């Protein structure tokens, strides 16, 4: 526990100045764009193009950006949506737990996540991948099988490891992003700004957990199935060509709710809470069970803990 208490809570990425050169360049280019505007580009498109880095937006600017995004989504889907920009609460560091002795590999969490987070239905993206592994082989992501499809789970002799973003405290994906479109928030959530991502996919190759996904096609969700409660960093519609991943259901958890996967799990294997609160479920688990993280040898320091309750 001492590790937790002494830790510097401020994520490494937050204190460096992001995106300056690009902005200077943009300013210079603004004149050119004004000319372009006369020649037919819509005002919206130019506004979107000129949007600053998220962390440099003033509250008013943020409001206009969000209003624009809401309007765009409404026009496209015909559904009224609200996009929150709620910031991290002080004294909160999110952590997730997963009880490997309970998980039966039923994939309810996978689809619950798809539903909650407006994941693309046509060009399928799933933030959670459940791996089936022979018990004898132990936890080994490389050798496990995500395509198991028996009549009933669990299968004799196998166990199941759901893997999604581990929300590392030393995230390699953040380190490699050339435009600082991804960073860890003060509450530990590693976020992606879909408006800033250039789609280079460096982060995907840096992630040791295969947790990041690329929108090869324009993602789409049928309007009647769209979840209208959104967050800027969460389940709002993504454009084509950006990277996305689990956000700990930021639109829920910043409002105090449990993530969708936790509530969808029929065996109660998924846990979630504030690592800085001694009474939270996740801390109780850390104090009473044998917890471990995936690929600990890489020192990415995930906030996603696996454990055995038996």
């Amino acid at each position, binding site marked *: 526990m001492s590790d937790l208490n002494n830790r510097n809570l401020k994520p490494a990425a937050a204190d460096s100045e992001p995106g300056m050169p690009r902005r200077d360049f943009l300013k210079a280019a603004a004149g050119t764009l004004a000319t372009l505007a006369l020649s037919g580009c819509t005002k919206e498109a130019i506004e979107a193009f000129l949007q600053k880095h998220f962390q440099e937006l003033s509250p008013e600017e943020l409001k206009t950006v969000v209003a624009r995004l809401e309007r765009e989504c409404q026009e496209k889907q015909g559904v009224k949506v609200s996009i929150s920009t709620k910031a991290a609460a002080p004294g909160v560091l999110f952590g997730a737990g997963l*009880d490997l002795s309970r998980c*039966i*590999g*039923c*994939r*309810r969490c*996978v*689809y*619950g996540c*798809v*539903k909650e987070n407006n994941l693309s*239905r*046509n*060009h*399928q993206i*799933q933030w959670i*991948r459940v791996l089936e592994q022979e018990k004898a082989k132990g936890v080994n992501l490389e050798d496990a*099988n*995500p*395509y*198991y*499809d*028996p*009549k*009933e*789970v*669990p299968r004799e002799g196998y166990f199941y490891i759901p893997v999604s973003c581990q929300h590392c405290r030393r995230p390699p994906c953040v380190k490699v992003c050339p435009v600082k479109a991804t960073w860890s928030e003060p509450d530990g959530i590693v976020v992606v700004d879909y408006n800033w991502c250039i789609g280079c996919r460096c982060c995907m190759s840096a992630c040791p957990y295969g947790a990041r996904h690329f929108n*090869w*096609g324009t993602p*789409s*969700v*049928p309007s*009647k*199935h769209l979840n209208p409660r959104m967050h800027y960093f969460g389940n709002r519609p993504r454009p084509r060509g950006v990277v996305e991943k689990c956000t700990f259901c930021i639109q829920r*958890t910043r409002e*105090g*709710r*449990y993530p969708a996967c*936790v*509530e*969808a*799990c*029929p*065996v*109660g294997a998924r*846990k*979630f*809470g*504030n690592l800085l609160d001694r009474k*939270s*479920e996740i801390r*109780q*688990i850390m104090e*009473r*069970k044998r917890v471990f993280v995936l690929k600990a040898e890489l020192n990415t320091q995930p906030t996603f803990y696996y454990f055995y*309750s038996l």
Partner: protein
Amino acid sequence: MKKYSLYILLPAFIVISILAMVNEIRKGHTLYHEEWAHAGVVAHSPEEYPAVFDFDPLAGLQTNAGEIHLPPPPLQKETWPCSQCHDKDTSNPERRVLSAAHEEIVLKHDEEHRWCLDCHDFADRDKLHLASGEKVSFEESYRLCGQCHGPTYRDWRLGIHGRRTGYWNGSKSYLLCVHCHSPHEPKFKPLTPLPPPLRPEFLRGQDSAKETQ
């Protein structure tokens, strides 16, 4: 001559390497868990499984104040209240095979040492009872389970065993033991898994959205 051989060898080398790579990728995916080669070919979406997601995780939670909510026990309407049939005169303490009612109940719960009335109260059938004789209502059946499953019960109270829904920083709803375990046959029933993800080679052009629109 040397020069020309390069013209032939180099393209041949490139072609062979490309073929080898393509083959490796193809083979990689079919060999990769051959048992499930048929799986992950079609995209599926959660809308195909309405029954799975047909619950309200915030049901019964009034505020965000931090209270704990226990959902009602999953008793069947036909047999509740038990006292509609059971009173002192109709009850029979003898251990036997039931034939006139409750035939569907099979005890697979340490059945050699257990009989119905270890848990159900003889005199007041609308109640359960603890080993001490204290009566507990069906709303508190977890206390009954807790007598014999101490560590699991403790874990449940701490949120480690079982499931909570609602607010991580506020009011929560705990599922009762009997929502997941039938008290008579407590082993967790196997489930049909939802379909596997699409294999990368089938990612293109699949449109499950259309079917569900």
